[in-house]
């Protein structure tokens, strides 16, 4: 070593500094290695250039129905009680919550929380109805009870001012606000609804309970049970109105609820679905519930808006698809009068 260091300066003095053979080989190896690596990476990448495609859509239809049992009616109408009693009697008539929710089920409760309105304005489902359904789910042994909806107005305001957030939390439910990152692309297989983003909790549930509210709606005439499924969708929902009946039928064939409890404690008879004035609201103290979503909508449409199934094409469409019957009067309807 000492010799080398003595010699080197001498070399440098009379000729340009050279490398030893060993150093030169190493340098060549390094450069060659980098060149080979860059070539390999380039070739690999060029073979992996694909035109971006949307994420693969899920395909399953969500069927949460339970089997019909002869001893229980498909539809029940309860009148004359407070929201909590209406729910209790309606569920009793249908065979109790245990029939719908099994032990360790993960249940999603879907009220209408679309608008920034208070319960008195009757644009969103009554919070006491939501709370009672949540309590009954727990009693039936549910593992998880989620209350959620994809609001139209600002969700934090809708959840707060509708009173649903407070009522659901008090009853022990998980309240999930819509989060843009939790929507998944779903192939709905409908006539007009093909690929749409659906809010995750609705896709992962074991049971889904529909809690709509009955309201006036200019385009359809009234918005009842099946229209509530708009609230599971993300994306550009404003296009659905163009073929509203077909899209309602498509949604109803995609999402089949365990049970539907249509809140008609207060109904919005004018200026729906947003309302605002208390003069637009009528107190009906009624609940229409059951396992036949078509019959429930047909009954409510006739009862409060005097609309026949012929005037509501989506009812005929869903009947044709085997989701229920528009002839509710041919079903054993169980009526209960409270108070």
């Amino acid at each position, binding site marked *: 070593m000492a010799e080398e260091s003595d010699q080197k300066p001498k070399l440098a003095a009379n000729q340009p500094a050279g490398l030893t053979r060993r150093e030169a080989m190493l340098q060549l190896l390094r450069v060659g290695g980098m060149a080979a690596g860059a070539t390999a990476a380039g070739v690999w990448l060029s073979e992996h250039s694909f035109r971006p495609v949307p994420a693969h859509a899920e395909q399953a239809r969500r069927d949460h129905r339970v089997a019909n049992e002869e001893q229980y009616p498909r539809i029940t109408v309860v009148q004359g009680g407070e929201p909590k009693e209406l729910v209790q009697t309606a569920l009793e008539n249908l065979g109790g919550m245990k029939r719908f929710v099994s032990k360790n089920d993960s249940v999603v409760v879907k009220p209408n929380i679309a608008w920034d309105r208070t319960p008195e304005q009757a644009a969103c489902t009554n919070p006491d109805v939501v709370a009672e359904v949540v309590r009954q789910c727990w009693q039936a042994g549910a593992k998880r009870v989620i209350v959620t909806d994809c609001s139209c107005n600002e969700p934090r305001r809708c959840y*707060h001012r509708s009173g649903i957030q407070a009522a659901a939390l008090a009853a022990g439910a998980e309240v999930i606000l819509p989060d843009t990152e939790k929507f998944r692309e779903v192939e709905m297989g409908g006539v007009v609804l093909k690929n749409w983003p659906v809010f995750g909790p609705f896709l992962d549930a074991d049971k889904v309970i529909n809690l709509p509210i009955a309201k006036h709606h200019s385009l359809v005439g009234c918005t009842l049970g099946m229209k509530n499924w708009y609230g599971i969708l993300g994306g550009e929902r404003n296009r659905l109105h163009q073929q509203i009946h077909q899209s309602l039928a498509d949604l109803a064939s995609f999402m089949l609820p365990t049970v539907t409890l249509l809140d008609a404690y207060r109904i919005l008879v004018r200026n729906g679905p947003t309302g605002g*004035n208390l003069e637009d609201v009528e107190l009906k103290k009624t609940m229409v519930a059951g396992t036949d979503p078509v019959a429930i909508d047909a009954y409510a449409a006739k009862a409060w808006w005097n609309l026949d199934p012929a005037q509501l094409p989506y009812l005929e469409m869903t009947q044709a698809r085997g989701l229920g019957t528009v002839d509710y009067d041919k079903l054993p309807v169980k009526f209960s009068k409270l108070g």
Partner: protein
Amino acid sequence: MRCVLGGSVAKSRLPLLRRISQIFFLVAFVALLVFTSLRPTSGGTGDIHMRAPVRLFFEWDPLVALANALSSHGLYRGLLWSLLILLPTLFLGRFFCGWICPMGTLQHFVGNMPSEAKRGKKRIESNRYKRWQTIKYVVLAAGLVAAFFGSMAIGWLDPFSLLVRSVGLAILPAFNYAVRAVLLPLEHSHVAAIKATGETLHSILQATVLDFRQTHFAQGLVLGALFIAILALSLRVTRIWCRSLCPLGALLGVVSRWSVLGLHKDLSKCTNCNRCLLHCQGGDDPIGSAPWHKSECLMCMNCVGACPEESLTFKFFRDAKAEREISTPDIGRRKALTGLAAGAAVVPLMRANTGLGKDRHDRLLRPPGALDEPDFLSRCIRCGECMKVCPNNSLQPTLEEAGLQGLWTPTLVPRIGYCEPSCVLCSEVCPTGAIWQITPKEKGWVVGVGQNKNPVRLGTAFYDRGRCLPWAEAIDCIVCEEWCPVSPKAIYVEEAQVVDSSGKVKTLKQPRVDPSRCVGCGACEYACPLQEHPAVYVTSIGESRSPSAQILLNRN
């Protein structure tokens, strides 16, 4: 009386106390800014109010208070609190700049970072008093005169305004974006542990610093870049913004001439070693060989600890005549007059332009509660707090919609978000009353819109029948009518027979607007499926704040 700050005991403690105070106020400021967002508490269905918005900081801002008083001949809401800063400054000097101001603190911290431009001698030279430090007094004079004549342009430069605007509309949204970009792949991971960690982190951050939804602001890049540029410049010259431009610092500098606390230099001990200049924040020449510039000193106390000879102390009730100091801003009559003249000229020049009296922008929709345009411009300090708090991200900083004088004032952009019926948060956070505080009831869109004869109106909706689906293309729609929040609805529909392209007669509903009911919230425009150029849109005509910009002869 001889009270002395400094000497051996306090030597080590004062800068430490100052640092604690600076961190405390910076954290408090950022926390208040983050919480200036819609966070409803559970329980009840009542109105949602803002508990502790960042405007609490503005209420201490004597510059905002003084300008507000000059322009409005009054003092809005909490601005009297600014005496809490102004009065102590009379006694203690610019302690606010050195100990409290979060904009100053940020520059202070950045200025302490190692930088080539501030090595050794260069650093000492950069901290000597410079003539350009008097620019801020010219800015202050011009700003106050402009305020007196009706323009709050000083808000562009007020440090709180600058900070809320930059951090609230650019830095926090960018931070929000970055955090979500990191969390998203974690949450979608196939490894259960990573997924769980991501989800836990997300829920913690969501409850504290993250926005409910990602916000976007027009010119966010410009606002963020200006802010970062100011911080980057303080790498070259410590607190360059405070020293050269800050009008609030200038105001406090003027006031501090009477302060009873000041620097005492024991010239017999001073060896001109320059150590005091190494950490000087204000550029006020604490060194013995130059006169002390009282109005520039930020009371940071660094020089006291830095002096190896213990020749520097801060004392109450010094004999000012015996001290070698310049107690008033070293500005000179000519510069002072320049400032006054500039301020006096700026408003007439701006008003000679179009935009306010003539040819108002049709899409300039002001937030609910906003005063009529001249009053609005004389109060709005462009802090962007209303935009930060707006839950629908609807309020955006203007570029030219309000004229050059209205740069960065708020405007509602319905394509991004409409005005939420029951929301009055922007009016609750506005520190100066440009958006006068109103209640949801006064706004009048929530209950009994028909009964409230004078709801707040932001403008009026109009249809473009060449694009509207039921009018132009024989397609069902009326989403606008569904969303219209007033009752009876301002959008009404009429059944019409139309012929589609195949020659079939079709019955559908065509929408129209009743201008006497429309409040101009923009929900129809927001909901219209023709996204990029909606078939229904709101223009400012009919806005309730303006007595002249009306359509109807008689509204009610």
